[in-house]
């Protein structure tokens, strides 16, 4: 299983590529197929700013979601995985 933490909801994503345009680390690339969700080209190059999610026009529908990598999870007094 390859490293991955950006998840696209194919039904909600329109392939507008706003997330691709805005990513400060330039880690996403447009899908060769128009209208399909972007490709996470460089999974290790992410600052987790969340701008891709914030600026997504379909964000209410969860078109793009970030799942925080396990080794990056915060440590809280009470916590379950």
């Amino acid at each position: 299983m390859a490293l991955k933490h950006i998840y696209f909801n194919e039904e909600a994503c329109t392939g507008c590529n706003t997330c691709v345009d805005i990513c400060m680390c330039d880690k996403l690339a447009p899908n060769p197929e128009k209208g399909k969700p972007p490709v996470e080209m460089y999974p290790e190059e992410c600052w987790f700013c969340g701008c891709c999610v914030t600026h997504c026009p379909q964000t209410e529908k969860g078109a793009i979601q970030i799942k925080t990598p396990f080794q990056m999870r915060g440590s809280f007094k009470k916590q379950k995985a």
Partner: protein
Amino acid sequence: MTELKMIPVETDVLVIGGGLAGCMAAINAAGEGDLKVTLAEKSNTMASGCAASGIDHFWGYIPPVHEKMGYTLEDMAEDHRVGIAFGLFRKDLFMLVAGTLYDRVLDLEKWGINFRYEDSKAPGKFRIVEQFHSVPAAFNMDGAPLKPTLTREAKRRGVTILNRVQMTDLIIDNGQVAGGVGIGTRTGDIYFIKAKAVVMSNGRSNRLSRNQTGFDFNTRLPSPLSGDGTSMAMRIGLPIINGEFLGSRLLAPCGNYNPNYGDPRNTVQPAARIVDNAGNVIAPRTQFYDWEKLGKEPFDAAESRRRWLEERKVWRGGRSTLPKRVAQGEGPFYLDFTDATEYEANYIAWSIKNEGKGTQFMRYFEGEEGLDLRENPQEYAGWANRELSGTAAKGLWVTKDLETDIRNLFGAGDEVGGLPWAAGPGAITMGWHAGGMAANRARGQKAFLAPSEDTAKARREFCSAILESKRGFHWKEVELHIQNLMDFYCGEVRGESMLRRGLERLEYVRSAPLRAENPHELARCMDVLSIMDSAELVLRASIERKESRPSHDFRRSDYPDQDDKNWLVFLATKRENDGTFSFKKMPVDR
């Protein structure tokens, strides 16, 4: 392979770096509508720099509040000099920042950023909170949309924004800036830009130490910030001050995540306190300022400062002891909001959402973890990366009008040295001022200088070689090597022989050929080359400062004592044309 395309650009004003400072510079330079203003940004100005996903506060002198209080700009300057800068202070830069911040706030408000709150009892219905001074002196705002707002305003004024263009070189002609060279991070195109005046605003240097999670871009500061401006400046012989102050690792709350909001004060005030495993309070919580009292109590600036410095000693002292205590087997330690009122909890959540990676953090905290701020203390458990920013205030040496030694070349924001924690306020005020200065110079110059194409051609050849290389190394391998080198030879306590060995090793690193398979990787190679230059700066400046200075996290085994007589100065490090380095002591403002 096909030759990389050369794209010529002519612009009156060139702004390098499109964060808060760069956007403000471009906006002001374009204000009269008579000049061509170009802004080069390696990412996208909509989300770039430290304010990429927002900031929730700006410090500065706030006349409607502070005049009523009896607190003067001079009082604030002295607070900053003593309590934040620990004596290494450019007062003229402070006066520019603190003194014009309010004007810039009103500009931002005009462009759509909200600073007014119905439930506020402060003058103007501003939310004014404590941050870096002995009285509340920071505006809160709904700052998440800052970068889109500035991008829109820049475009409205006709600024040409070149996103995905990473500047790599400055071109100088007879002691004056004549333009620059950059690369397209997606195309590999070489940009040869002629300009009459330039503002440098590339922000802080990052990625100089290993990340504890093994996820290399999980840094507190935005990962694209690779000190490109410092590198460009060094290579044209500009002096950089405070290069020796690469700090130590602090523990981060909600360890490993690196949410980059201010703790335990700033973003998470007032309810945040640091507690130990038994619940003993190491750093106490604060209370919001009682606005009913404004102007009704006598105010003594010296007494206010004294009390504030005492409080800061307790909570900063408390926080800074955590790494040592953990190393000795103590802990766990927590950032605890459990006695927050509902109002305070809502304030904290709002504040986090407008600051740094906060929006994503709250989504993660509430969403993925299902947690409630008031119910679940956050553990200080991960090491934040070492930083060359903040108290370090590394950057260009400039005049009070932000000009470098090179005519028509200005600096703004965290690119400029000498004002600790300039940060957001420094960016918007210096950016604005530098943009205005650059515009006036450009206006006064009829023709472009005739910069030679040599730098652009050399850069094109250099980039082609990286793209064609068969045996070069991946940028990440080289970056990891530099980070390991810095952590090992330039550690939290330094000594000359190890620092010199670090320089030898850095020479070896410089000899490593790089390889990139596409323009994205090529741009990352350029990041790494910048990081190399910052690494050299830190090593050389560390050797030169022959003392220890705990206030700046600077400790030497061979010079363990602080020596104000000889070293209460800014150390300026300069790379000469022949590659050797020279040093100069610059005066601090008393």
